[in-house]
């Protein structure tokens, strides 16, 4: 949904090797101005030109939301990933010009909570760093439980302990330490909200345990980024305008239509608003729906498509445009 967001031209100000797996990047505005303030838990989408391949990966902001001099993210190297984290680790150096999106928050603190209980696993610590930085000066009550594989890979453990002292609880896997989740959840005051960010297994475990113990659904929050869709070039026929267009790997159907001079409606360009909804005249193949707009039934029927984000694979796709 960050596709098409307003963007910020930035310069990489600093790259820090935090440990064997993690690097931290600091971005400042290229024009020297202040960054927009943001809310704890927000992320930005980093636009990468990976030797001709455009990659757009979301990363949680970990810096203090009140610090408008720059943004910081931490990137965990994923050797098996699609290449975004490897690009960040291998090729992004201080002084480089990049583009990032405006912050978007899909993991905000619930402003009504009496207490915030944060559970982090590994690199999932990053959104909690901005959340705690925002909540601390507001006098809000919070507690962090942070599971790491080893102390060497426990990014920011020392920094967090210094800043938040007894509110921080560290669990080291290789020492056999684990969060005693049931005890923890059974001793929380009324009005506590629970937040989890980490590996999928941890998120599922925390959510299932909380549900089983009767925590209301709207008090349990989680964030897990899915990898952005892989793009292969494909051909689209436009019935109304009588054109045939090629959609490039890093191009949306909407962009390809615009490049071909076809006046297509749009608004958010992010699969959310519905403005670009287009009827499918014929589909011999499979539409990869990436939008948050069409219902599951509509997606399955392959009779509608959101050209701003969705892609196609197969023999022929004809759109009513």
């Amino acid at each position, binding site marked *: 949904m*960050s596709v098409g*967001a307003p963007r910020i031209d930035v310069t990489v100000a600093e790259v820090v090797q935090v440990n064997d797996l993690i690097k931290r990047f600091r971005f400042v505005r290229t024009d020297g101005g202040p960054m927009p303030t943001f809310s704890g838990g927000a992320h930005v989408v980093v636009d990468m030109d990976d030797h001709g391949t455009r990659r757009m990966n979301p990363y949680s902001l970990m810096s203090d939301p009140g610090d408008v001099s720059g943004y910081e993210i931490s990137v965990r190297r994923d050797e098996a990933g699609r290449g975004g984290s490897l690009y960040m680790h291998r090729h992004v150096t201080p002084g480089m010009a990049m583009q990032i999106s405006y*912050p978007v*928050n899909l993991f*905000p603190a619930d402003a009504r909570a009496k207490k915030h209980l944060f559970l982090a696993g590994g690199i999932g610590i990053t959104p909690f760093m901005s959340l705690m930085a925002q909540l601390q000066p507001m006098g809000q009550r919070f507690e962090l439980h942070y599971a790491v594989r080893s102390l060497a890979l426990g990014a920011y453990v020392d920094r967090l302990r210094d800043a938040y002292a007894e509110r921080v609880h560290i669990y080291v896997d290789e020492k056999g330490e684990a969060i005693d989740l049931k005890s923890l959840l059974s001793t929380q005051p009324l009005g506590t909200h629970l937040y989890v960010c980490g590996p999928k297994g941890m998120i599922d475990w925390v959510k299932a345990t909380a549900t089983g113990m009767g925590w209301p659904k709207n008090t349990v929050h989680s964030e897990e980024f899915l990898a952005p869709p892989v793009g292969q070039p494909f051909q689209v026929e436009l019935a109304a305008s009588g054109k045939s267009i090629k959609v490039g790997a890093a191009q949306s159907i909407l962009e390809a239509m615009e490049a071909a001079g076809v006046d297509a409606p749009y608004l958010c360009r992010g699969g959310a608003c519905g403005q670009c909804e287009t009827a499918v005249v014929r589909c011999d193949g499979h539409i990869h729906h990436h939008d948050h707009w069409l219902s599951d039934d509509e997606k399955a029927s392959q009779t509608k498509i959101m050209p701003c984000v969705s892609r196609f694979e197969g023999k022929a796709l004809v759109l009513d445009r």
Partner: protein
Amino acid sequence: MGFEFNTETFRNDFTFRNSPRAIARFPFPFDRDDYMYSVNMEPHVPGRPGSVFEHAFDVDEHYLAEMRDRDLVLKEDPLRCQSLPHMEMAGWDLLELIMESKARDYPDWFELHRQGNKWHWINKPMQIEQKFTFLDSSTLPYGPMEYITRQTQGDFTLQDQRDENLWIEAGMVTTQADWSLDFDIGMGFHEWHAPVPLAHEKGVFDRALKFLLKLQHGAPVRRFNWTMTVDPLLDTSPENYPKWGPTRAEITPENVGQRMHLRVELQTLWRLPRSNAIAFPIRCYLIKFDELVTQPKWARRLHRVVRDLHPDLAAYKGFLRNRDTMVAYLSQYDDGAPTSPGWWPED
């Protein structure tokens, strides 16, 4: 800025008027000769110079008079301004947004000097100068939302976002088209839109909510809404219905041009950075029929829109009983000529 602030009233003797400049820049909401609900949102980007779209928050000749009227409404009914405790951060976001925008867009009238959290705000038209500490409410005479919306035209609501919904949990509402903040506060999106006819069935609110939940900081959007109001009364509130409701029965062919007003709301929506809430400014513009028909395109078009509007909408907007009189008046200014697409009077 090329104009002066009017001395005028929105009650009792109703001396409100639009100058020729204000008429020419009136936000006429119909881009075609008919009207039906739609999501009709577009990016709130700077528009034509001189138009109400030129700046993020339009300041016009009615500024001081509207602020005086707001103060009178609040003195009679303090519940027109409410903010639930968890919405204070959103109030600060709104204060920052408005102060930054006005200081940038109207540097002759407004100044904002920031040194860390020590802020210095100057509002020359209202003769206000305030030094305060950002995020410290004890340094302002009101809470942050009330403070800045006592200096800004239009109503404001602040929506918290959680549980895949928006919740109206703070607001300054004194220029409303017959809805009540005190009644709606705490409601979810579909709840506070429940009275609107026809649009639910069309899925308009499902789509609008889905869109707004993804609204991005730095990418505000806008839309129009409209209704009809007898006399230039800003405060057409349910609380005061006994005072203004009966005036609908006073419209005659002789007075319709003077007393019937097209009431247009320029609504904008902003994602707020610190709170992740959404600010919803609802800016009200009034124009009497006699003023509106000085623009031939608008006169023709308004005649057709009013004449052909679905009766449920005419009833909801409160002018079904006066429709015939309005149509008869407007028809004098409709020669049947085609109208050009879009809002602008001269295009």
